């Protein structure tokens, strides 16, 4: 069974769970409803032998509703299939059920998403920040967080300041004809 066939089979098996199926260059992405996430994931991990969770990541589509998307990359070492599962997260309810009981690797991935994006995973065994320190008040990967950071202070733990961007961010131009025009230049706001 290829990834595309798997996607269709899941749609048949769980009526109403799959909101959309996207095909791109042989890769299949399924958008699921929040309620069907755990049943579908359990089925994928068990019956469909998706034994490897490659990655869990999140996307901030600021200005859209729902704002966030959590993306799961599944891979099966038996059938060599790659399946991408997505679920939308609304700004009003930033809770997603954890999949760390299915794939233990999800533990740290979900902690990173919680740290960087502020999405909470219900049922997670140990939902602490993984990169920033406990007590840091922001979620830095959100689109409305400034690139240079914001000042904060946790006495005896850590502090942060705003970095001077000096007209930046400075971006290299890929595909430039010569070294001079490929140099990093300030782009965006003047």
């Amino acid at each position: 069974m290829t990834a595309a066939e798997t996607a269709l089979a899941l749609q048949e098996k769980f009526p109403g769970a799959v909101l959309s199926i996207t095909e791109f260059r042989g890769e299949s992405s399924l958008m699921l409803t929040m309620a069907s996430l755990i049943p579908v994931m359990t089925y994928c991990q068990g019956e469909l032998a998706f034994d490897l969770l490659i990655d869990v990541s999140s996307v901030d589509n600021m200005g859209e509703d729902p704002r966030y998307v959590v993306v799961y990359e599944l891979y099966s070492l038996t059938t060599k299939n790659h399946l991408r599962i997505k679920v939308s997260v609304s700004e009003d309810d930033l809770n997603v059920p954890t999949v760390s009981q299915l794939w233990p690797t999800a533990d740290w991935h979900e902690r990173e998403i919680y740290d960087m994006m502020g999405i909470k995973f219900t049922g997670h065994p140990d939902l602490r920040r993984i990169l920033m320190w406990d007590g840091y008040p922001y979620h830095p990967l959100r689109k409305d967080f400034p690139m240079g950071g914001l000042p904060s202070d946790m006495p005896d733990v850590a502090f942060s300041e705003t970095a001077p961007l000096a007209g930046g961010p400075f971006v290299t131009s890929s595909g430039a004809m010569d070294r001079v025009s490929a140099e990093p230049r300030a782009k965006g706001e003047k």
Partner: protein
Amino acid sequence: MSTELTHAAYDSKIEGNIVFTQLDAAMNWMRKNSLWPMPMGLACCAIELMATASSRFDIARFGAEVMRFSPRQADVMIVAGTVTYKMALAVKRIWDQMPEPKWCIAMGACASSGGMYRSYAVLQGIDHLIPVDVYISGCPPRPEALIEGFMRLQRKIQGEQSFLAQKKELVDALSQ
């Protein structure tokens, strides 16, 4: 301070075994040739720091090969790498544990200024927290650059008024 020297009483038994110098010069000479580093390796600069300590570049030639991970035996902290805010207060704490006299070398672009990390997560130069004596440019600097930084620090130490700094209260009391 007066540089005029007087002759010691002539004694053939100790002839040639006495060197006249200034106390500051003697103290500085000893200090600058036994600079024990506190290796604060935080990123790729630490690899170059290790190369500097190894046989090809060999900072034992400068008396600085004693890298121990104890701040209490260290004279110079080499901040080699990116100082994140999460690490910043730990670096400060280790600096505070080092006994005086102590010096600091900011090795590389990140330790000096944050380098390419204009970021929410990175301290924009270790001089926001601790006083820096020598900044070394480079990303990462080659071992020669670190040795150059060491020699600059040695030159700086040579010019210090060590005795006055050590006995500051005594000198103040005497001059009243």
